[in-house]
């Protein structure tokens, strides 16, 4: 809880329909959660259940059919400087080199890039010396690290991540998850992290919010009480495996989900 006792991020009765040429798609149904200040929350759900739809609404990139998103108690209706987003597949601009990509948000806001902050972040993710490389010269993991630096360079208080490591191989993925934990423990930023990988969610999260299949509803919330810092051995720990199994079960039992 922040000092005035309100959650950092509130999603209140979020419902969204897409009107398409072939009819109406009910993407999100009466979805409500609260994410606390400094929390690392994972949103877990099957493909197409409305995770991106929800995250885009959190980022103020599109509106809801009904319901509301609040950041620090204030409604989010358009992109907010306090919120930064990391996309699936690094989403770097291929015509800009690494440093120009990282400076994009400053350029857009007409600010001078925070050089000290950028350099420190680059060093932290191990990209020092790659500033003038073009995205295509970087590996997938390096690209995604660059995009994390880009998001953090503007010092947001809420970081939204939409399946950021979905396209990476298992080794790089583990490495990136350790990096996220490290960054989160240092900065204590509020993070909403989307994934459909249960183990990834359990490894990272304070709480895992499980979504049902479309239309996306909140099915269950799991508190992850594993001690931090978590290392890769934890994937073998009995309690970890137990949690993964429990969450898996909650996704498979559809009728119970509907009742939630």
């Amino acid at each position, binding site marked *: 809880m922040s000092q005035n006792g309100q959650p950092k991020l509130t999603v209140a009765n979020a419902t969204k329909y*897409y*009107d398409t040429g072939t009819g109406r798609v009910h993407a999100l149904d009466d979805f409500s959660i609260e994410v606390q200040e400094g929390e690392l929350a994972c949103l877990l759900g099957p493909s197409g259940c409305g995770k*991106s*739809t929800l*995250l*885009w609404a959190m*980022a*103020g*990139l*599109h*509106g*809801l*059919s*009904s319901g*509301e*998103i609040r950041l620090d108690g204030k*409604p*989010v*209706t*358009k*992109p907010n*400087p306090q*919120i*930064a*987003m990391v*996309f*699936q*597949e690094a*989403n770097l*601009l*291929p*015509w800009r080199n690494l440093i120009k990509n990282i400076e*994009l*948000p400053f*350029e*857009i*806001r007409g600010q001078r890039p925070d050089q000290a902050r950028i350099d420190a972040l680059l060093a932290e993710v191990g990209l020092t010396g790659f500033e003038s490389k*073009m*995205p*295509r010269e970087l590996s997938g993991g390096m690209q995604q690290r660059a995009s994390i630096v880009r998001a953090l360079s*503007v010092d947001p208080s809420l970081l939204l991540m*939409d399946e950021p490591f979905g396209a990476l191989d298992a080794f790089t993925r583990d490495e990136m998850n350790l990096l996220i934990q490290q960054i989160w423990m240092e900065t204590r930023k509020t993070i909403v992290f989307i994934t459909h990988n249960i183990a990834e969610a359990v490894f990272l999260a304070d709480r895992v919010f499980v979504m049902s299949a479309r239309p996306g509803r909140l099915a269950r919330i799991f508190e992850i009480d594993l001690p931090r810092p978590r290392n890769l051995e934890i994937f073998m720990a009995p309690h970890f495996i137990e949690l993964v199994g429990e969450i898996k079960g909650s996704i498979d039992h559809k009728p119970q989900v509907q009742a939630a």
Partner: protein
Amino acid sequence: MASVDRELRDKIPTFEKAGAADVGNWSSAASTLSILKGSRDVTLILVTAIIVFGGAELLLRLFEVPAYIAPTPSQVVWALITDFPYIGPHIGYTLIELLVGFSIGASIGFVLAAVITQFPLVEKIVAPYILLLVTTPMLALVPLLILKFGFGFTPRIIAVTLASGPMVMINAATGFRRTDLAKIALARSFGASTLQIFLKIRIPMAMPMVIVGLMIGSIFGLLTAVGAEMVGGSFGLGNRLTYYSSLIQMPQFFACILVLAVIGISIYVFFYWVGKKWASWES
């Protein structure tokens, strides 16, 4: 219901296809020139050229082909040198027509493409007319233009504009239609305005296709300029072609052809270089 920019609402937030922006024709045009890499290749090309032109020279001399049928390469080069005082100014006239006409046509084509692609309905309505402009040989209009504007620069410049503009436009439009929602969302998430999204995302993304359009448009412009000069008026390289052929001065005639070839190739090389500089990220 939260009020959000209308443009943003209901855009598909899927990123699966985000990285897969299609590669324009540029790469194929570019690869032709990138063959030139390596000194061994250069030697090979030079040797081939020497064999082709030397062979032509030799054969034409051997069979004593008269110059009014086919001049030897050396005669053509010699004619270009000796008659340059007469041919030179006409090169200038043709280049002026090309430059002015192409600049106007390309600017209009680029702006129209940028604007029209933002409004799908407008694009649908306008598309048939653009296609009409692309497929109609603008040369056919030249006699009409001469009637209206006389034998000066004006009808030729108009013809060049009409020939190059639509070419630039359809290619640029293809570029601008490549909307990568994830990249636009990225810029918007940092608070970018519509103008900033245009300048920082849409234009760079369209650039490879714009350059292809500029290359094709300028070559079309050159062809149209020369053609228009052949139709009427008393200056320009096209006019020289009719003039020298009527006098059966074939070395001079081919000297003009040579100049035109050099101009055409220079245009190609120039846009190849521009593409390398501004659109190399795509290859």
